[in-house]
């Protein structure tokens, strides 16, 4: 059937299973918007900023476990998307970003609102396209969706000149997609599995690091079975949290810069590390050259480029985690590592103060975050911003299923919290979605409150209001001799702000009122903003100072005041 480019785009979105687009219009995408009413199956959510639309698509994709989509106009629309695209790239989130561009005869002539969107985004995407012919649109969308969702997922960008939306072409949907420069890894090499199994069987102090890949590869059950079979304790990267229930006996939580003391010591003392779907990031691993010299490394990943990128790897295993983990389980002996686990438990018990929530009447960020977590059900989705509150959420919330935590890991994008929570709520309309916001990050993208009201998205937002760009303040305190520069951040009256948007808003200044406010928010049918005014200068402990090895994890200073010591 012959259709306009605009109709082909909308028809193609349906074919690749996109039911929601977070978009923002502009001149060059007018022909597309003009045809939207004819395609009611694709819901358009008008965001208030393209970055918000991009993060919403990202949050949507993570919560739903499928392709998310954002749309922007040319020039400023496209450049506003960049942060969100790179965020999805760093965290391997399957997303489709569509931008309009100036008409073909204006490309390269610095036309009004022209930006070299494909050039700007090339290093930020898994792949991108500039579609110069309407007859190529359908194929491009099919290929883009295939690339975004298979292998190591990631963002794919399609740039479409204005007149391509207007041109007509035959709508031909490709039966299948094959890309000769794109090979999905097949079954893992038998010899690699055998070598890995040998190391696992021989190890005395083995350890699993489970990353985001386990969740993306939908292999959480396989991870649990493998860990239980081999008796190997499991650490998580920030984005791997939720791949194994935190309550599981073999789960030891997060490692890394703000990982638990016992997790970092376990990683530093293991004789075998099995990385599964993680990318050996410096925030998780610490100084590369001094990461546990005694441990051999097995690394399971679907992206060969991750093997040996940051750490020398004894056995790289290329394959899909969902296939590799059962293979490894079948190839290894059933074991338990009681001595090793006892060792980790002892470290944990001896250092229980290192992540303890300060006691006393003051309102701590950790306290608020923990209380929210205690009032979550199994379906609750937690979204965070970036900074201290993010690390405290990772430390103190008990994540027990995949994608329960949606956070900006690789890029560390402040301002992710509000729009990503919005996207997650669209994906899971019936779930309780809590956004743990920084007072700094919240102010970066709060314009999406209007979108939440428009769409009646009942997101609960907890502003962890310490009056500071807290994580930066912590670094200035610890590494720049208390020289606080540009970290005290003023703010509007958040309650009035919420009310101005028509959102229920609460303020909590007293630790006794935390529970009540959370309950009130949970019970309210609609978005809620809670301004938790917490202590200003709490620090996140433990901490691996930037550039240090994991073994150099620093703990909170021991309590000093007599009363606290006595406790």
């Amino acid at each position: 059937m012959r259709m306009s480019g605009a109709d082909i785009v909308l028809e193609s979105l349906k074919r690749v299973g996109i039911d929601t687009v977070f978009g923002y219009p502009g001149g060059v995408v007018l022909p597309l918007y003009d045809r939207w009413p004819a395609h009611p199956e694709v819901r358009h959510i008008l965001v208030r900023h393209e970055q918000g639309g991009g993060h919403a698509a990202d949050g949507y994709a993570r919560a739903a476990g499928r392709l998310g989509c954002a749309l922007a106009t040319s020039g400023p629309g496209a450049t506003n998307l960049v942060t969100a695209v790179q965020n999805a790239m760093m965290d391997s989130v399957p997303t489709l970003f569509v931008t309009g561009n100036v008409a073909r005869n204006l490309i390269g002539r610095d036309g009004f609102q022209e930006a070299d969107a494909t050039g700007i985004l090339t290093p930020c995407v898994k792949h991108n396209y500039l579609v110069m012919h309407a007859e190529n649109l359908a194929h491009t969308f099919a290929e883009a969706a295939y690339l975004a969702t298979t292998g190591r997922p990631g963002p794919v960008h399609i740039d479409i000149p204005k007149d391509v939306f207007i041109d007509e072409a035959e709508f031909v949907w490709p039966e299948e997609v094959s890309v000769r420069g794109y090979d999905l890894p097949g079954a893992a090499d038998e010899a690699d599995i055998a070598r890995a199994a040998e190391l696992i069987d021989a190890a005395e102090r083995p350890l699993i690091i489970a990353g985001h890949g386990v969740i993306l590869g939908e292999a959480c059950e396989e991870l649990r079975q493998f860990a239980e079979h081999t008796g190997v304790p499991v650490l998580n990267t920030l984005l791997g949290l939720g791949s194994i229930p935190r309550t599981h006996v073999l789960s030891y939580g997060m490692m890394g810069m703000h990982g638990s003391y016992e997790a970092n010591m376990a990683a530093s003392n293991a004789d075998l590390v099995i990385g599964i779907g993680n990318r050996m990031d410096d925030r998780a691993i610490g100084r590369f050259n001094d990461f546990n010299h005694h441990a051999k490394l097995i690394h399971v990943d679907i992206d060969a480029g991750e093997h040996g990128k940051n750490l020398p790897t004894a056995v790289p295993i290329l394959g899909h985690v969902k296939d590799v983990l059962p293979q490894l389980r079948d190839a290894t002996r059933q074991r338990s590592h009681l001595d090793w686990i006892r060792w980790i438990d002892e470290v944990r018990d001896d250092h229980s103060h290192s992540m303890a929530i300060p006691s006393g009447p003051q309102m701590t960020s950790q306290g608020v975050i923990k209380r929210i977590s205690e009032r979550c059900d199994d379906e609750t989705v937690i979204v965070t911003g970036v900074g201290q509150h993010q690390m405290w959420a990772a430390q103190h919330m008990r994540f027990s299923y995949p994608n329960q935590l949606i956070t900006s890991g690789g890029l560390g994008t402040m301002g992710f919290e509000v729009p990503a929570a919005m996207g997650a709520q669209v994906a899971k309309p019936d779930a309780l979605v809590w956004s743990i916001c920084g007072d700094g990050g919240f102010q970066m993208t709060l314009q999406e409150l209007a979108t939440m009201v428009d769409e009646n998205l009942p997101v609960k937002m907890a502003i962890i209001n310490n009056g500071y760009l807290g994580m930066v303040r912590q670094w200035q305190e610890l590494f720049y001799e208390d020289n606080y520069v540009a970290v005290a951040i003023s703010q509007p009256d958040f309650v009035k702000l919420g009310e101005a948007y028509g959102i229920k808003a609460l303020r909590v200044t007293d630790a006794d009122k935390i529970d009540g406010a959370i309950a009130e928010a949970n019970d309210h049918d609609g978005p809620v903003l809670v301004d938790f005014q917490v202590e200003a200068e709490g620090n996140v402990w433990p901490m691996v100072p930037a550039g240090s090895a994991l073994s150099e994890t620093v703990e909170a200073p021991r309590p000093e005041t007599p009363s606290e010591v006595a406790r």
Partner: protein
Amino acid sequence: MSAELRKHTVVALVEDRPGVLNRVASLFRRRGFNIDSLAVGTTEEPGISRMTIVVASENGIVDQVQKQLAKLIDVIEVADLTGEDAVIRELALIKVACTTEQRREVLDLVDIFRARAVDVAPGSLIIQIVAEERQFNSLIENLEPYGILEMTRTGRIAMLRGDQTTAVHDPESEELQRFRHSSGRRPAGELPYVSD
């Protein structure tokens, strides 16, 4: 680290479509890989171009170069021909200062190196040489006393000896070929003026 720097000859077979060179260059820049030389041209397979990239780096890095290149969707195949039994060549044009009296001497040198003089002027000669690095450097050393006025090199190209190849013969359907070929290319002819 005392890792040894070595020149690696990496061959990449890529889709012949707009933006591919940008993707490859962008990757090298972003990851801090150094390109010594880069030669691009068509191959026996329509729609596939061949890039020969010389990378000076430690062995571990070249492994990453190959893996990261292979991740680019438009890159179909990557091979490292370093240390393989391969024919490796580079062409250079060298304009050397040379008086009529010196000409005989210079032409003798040209002969010894199996190069050719391709242009003669009263005060200069253009010498064309197709050679491997070492031979090439030694010619330059010998020419330097006369004064090298200008030089240009194509960058290395390489091919395995014998029956082995690094070619891909994975022709795509006509429809796909049309798609790949036209993607990102401006259509021919006048386009309607569509502005906002």
